[in-house]
């Protein structure tokens, strides 16, 4: 287990009360070197029940979801709904720079742990609150789930096939991950101000708003042109919306992402020309493609006939090649064509070469499993200390002794009493 010696946020401490909606926030801050303490209820956080699981063993200490988003954190158990729990929490608040949480609005206030109370304990404290819709407003008490956030952010409506319902990303609560990342950025913005002025504050993140930003292009089109973009058509450069164009093509062993349009000589570089040359080198470029003037191939000039004449030989070309072959050719010829990769490609196939060259992957020891697991590494390659995972996710209450006994000085007998009373 490698410990960061000095990360960018090393002097900072984070008390992490989040659930599934905010776990990634603390993990990012931990990667940056902050001392992040995940605070779970004594029976363990419900997010430990989210799969996939290590060797498919459904166990709260084997959730790969939990591992992924709680690496770089230590862990304690604490029931803040008890008076004793709150008393201990307040002691910890005095030592912390951030409290991050994703409870419903008002929950922390009801416990006497809202921002005004925390500020009295620690004037510079920054409270980062992630909620479905924000701290106030007509929907503030609405229940959320990832699909509901995706829906109400306006993004889900835009994607999918016209003959089926709009569709969300199947794994893993992508709306929550975006909100958690925005929360981390907001937390450090608040820290920047706090270090200068001593003034802490609350960072209020609405998951709906984070999703709505993904929709900004479509809201922009509505605002500018009162036009509604049909599902699945993507960005509104395609003025001629009646003609569907293919963007994801079947290939021999999967799919590849490629768009012919808008990539002629006037765009730089001329990817369309280069793909046409590649097809020709394989004897697969139909006359139409050979002769087509990519300079005039703006979306507005499209007719169904043109699209079919170009897409038919293209489809055949892709079907004759595997993802790996297409990526190899794309890299060699500098064509912006990309296979729809799978995790297998990313970790073992051609895409993994770039990542390995940059020393991206990190092996973390899991002594309790007798194994080590490969994790994604630094999210920014810095010339100072790399912001990357430093330790595996904590076991339930793993650092209770370290923090309660050794740091706070709570005697062992008291800890036993608190354990039996369900406080820790």
């Amino acid at each position, binding site marked *: 287990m490698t410990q960061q010696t000095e990360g960018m946020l090393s002097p900072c401490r984070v008390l992490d009360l989040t659930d599934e909606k905010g776990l990634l926030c603390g993990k990012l801050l931990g990667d940056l070197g902050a001392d992040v303490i995940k605070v779970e209820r004594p029976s363990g956080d419900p997010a430990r029940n989210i799969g996939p699981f290590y060797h498919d063993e459904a166990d709260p200490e084997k959730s790969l979801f939990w591992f992924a988003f709680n690496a770089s954190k230590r862990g304690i158990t604490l029931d803040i709904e008890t008076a004793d729990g709150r008393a201990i929490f307040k002691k910890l608040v005095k030592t912390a720079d951030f409290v991050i949480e994703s409870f419903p609005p008002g929950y922390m206030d009801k416990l006497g742990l809202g921002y005004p109370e925390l500020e009295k304990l620690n004037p510079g404290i920054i409270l980062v609150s992630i909620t479905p819709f924000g701290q106030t407003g*007509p929907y503030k008490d609405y229940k959320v789930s990832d699909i509901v956030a995706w829906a109400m952010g306006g993004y889900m409506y835009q994607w999918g096939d016209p003959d089926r319902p709009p569709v969300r990303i199947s794994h893993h609560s992508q709306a929550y991950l975006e*909100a958690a990342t925005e929360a981390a950025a907001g937390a450090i913005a608040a820290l920047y101000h706090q270090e200068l002025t001593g003034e802490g504050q609350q960072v209020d993140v609405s998951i709906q708003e984070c999703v709505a930003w993904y929709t900004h292009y479509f809201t922009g089109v509505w605002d500018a042109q009162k036009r509604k973009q049909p599902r699945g058509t993507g960005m509104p450069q395609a003025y001629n919306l009646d003609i569907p164009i293919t963007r994801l093509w079947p290939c021999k062993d999967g799919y590849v*992402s490629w768009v012919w349009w808008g990539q002629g000589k006037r765009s730089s570089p001329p990817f369309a020309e280069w793909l046409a040359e590649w097809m020709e080198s394989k004897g697969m470029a139909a006359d139409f493609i050979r002769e087509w003037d990519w300079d005039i191939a703006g979306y507005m000039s499209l007719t169904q006939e043109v699209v079919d004449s170009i897409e038919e030989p293209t489809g055949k070309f892709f079907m004759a090649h595997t993802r790996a072959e297409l990526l190899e050719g794309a890299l060699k010829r500098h064509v912006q064509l990309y296979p729809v990769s799978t995790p297998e490609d990313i970790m073992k196939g051609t895409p993994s070469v770039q990542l390995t060259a940059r020393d991206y992957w990190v092996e973390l020891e899991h002594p309790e499993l007798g194994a080590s697991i490969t994790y994604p590494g630094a999210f920014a390659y810095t010339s100072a200390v790399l912001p990357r995972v430093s330790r595996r996710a904590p076991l339930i209450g793993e650092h209770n002794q370290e923090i309660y006994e050794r740091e706070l000085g709570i005697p062992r007998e008291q800890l036993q009493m608190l354990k039996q009373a369900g406080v820790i």
Partner: protein
Amino acid sequence: MPKKALEGIKVADFAWAFVGPITTRTLASYGAEVIKIEGGVKAGRMDAQRFSGFFKDGVPGGVDRSSDFNMVNTGKLSVTLNLAHPKGVEVAKRFVAWADVVVENFAGGVMQKMGLGYEELRKVKPDVIMLSSCMMGQTGPEAWLGGVGPNLTARSSITHIVGWPDRAPAYLGPHTDYITPPLNVLAILAALIYRRRTGKGQYLDTSQYEGVLHFMAPLLLDYSVNQRVANRNGNRLAYAAPHGAYRCCGEDRWCAIAVFTDEEWERFCQVIGNPAWTNDPRFSTLLGRKENEEVLDKLVEKWTINHSAEEVMSMMQAAGVAAGVLETAEDLLEHDLQLKHRHYFWNLEHPEVGQYRTARPSFVLSKTPCEMRRAPLLGEHNEYALKEVLSMSDAEIAELVIEGVIE
């Protein structure tokens, strides 16, 4: 006491298109002074978003009429500099000497070729913080490879897990363009914190690919540990049913519903009036509902189709069941009461396009709120930036104009 969280931070912004500009947009919204540096009409090398974006009222033309550009570049100052001219590079370096942070998102190696790589910039500003955000990173065999958002979405395996298992994945647009900017903002602000403490600047080489893969972490671990490649699953979730988007009355109106617990299932049944089918033992357990999910979804839709999406949402929410309208862009802007309450969209006035609405950043700071200001016109702040920021004389500026360094 400063009223803006990021007041005093100075940014020399070479970014273009989406990812870089969204990054600096957030900084500008919270008070950083961001000078956006582009080429010019004659010099070329302007931000391509000025031309590829959509236009107000569908009328293209000019360099300041792109609505997309105007939404993404709020709050920044605009300076034109011909970076192909050696004097242009010199002036750019003077801006770097003024700045705390430099941001760019060209493909790997482009800034170096222009003489504006990190090692060069360190000479004029030893503690500069420079962020280079490109698709694959600045090093490695694919460092030169550029790409647009949809490409990265495919390459990061996100595309693979969107859509239905019985057909091609669904297109998701430049999805990853929205994941990278908050990671960039986080990296820049952390670097500023670090510099305050240590006096050290640094180079932040952010590969969009490497950042985005964090959102795929559980699936990467699943492959690594279990040799499994998770597939797309439509709108299903392994441990909830009903779970999906259900058609409501009206044209292409949908409501998402997600039922997790037995209690929620009972309340769901109550909301829809306890029809006979809900007593069918097939549906009384989660396992039963999952095994008969196709039938279940059809039965649910038989109810939702007779109600508006808004009704479905409010009835379900009143009963404590998670449900939400699949809002359209029009819904977000015109009807959503929550976003109105939160002042999420701001109304800005622009000399070329008139009124336009755009969203503020996605985090709200309680004591130091953001301020949204319109996007600049091309070169609008040349005089201010050269005179006030770089203390150039009128004669110096006139010479630069004559030489085609600024327009």
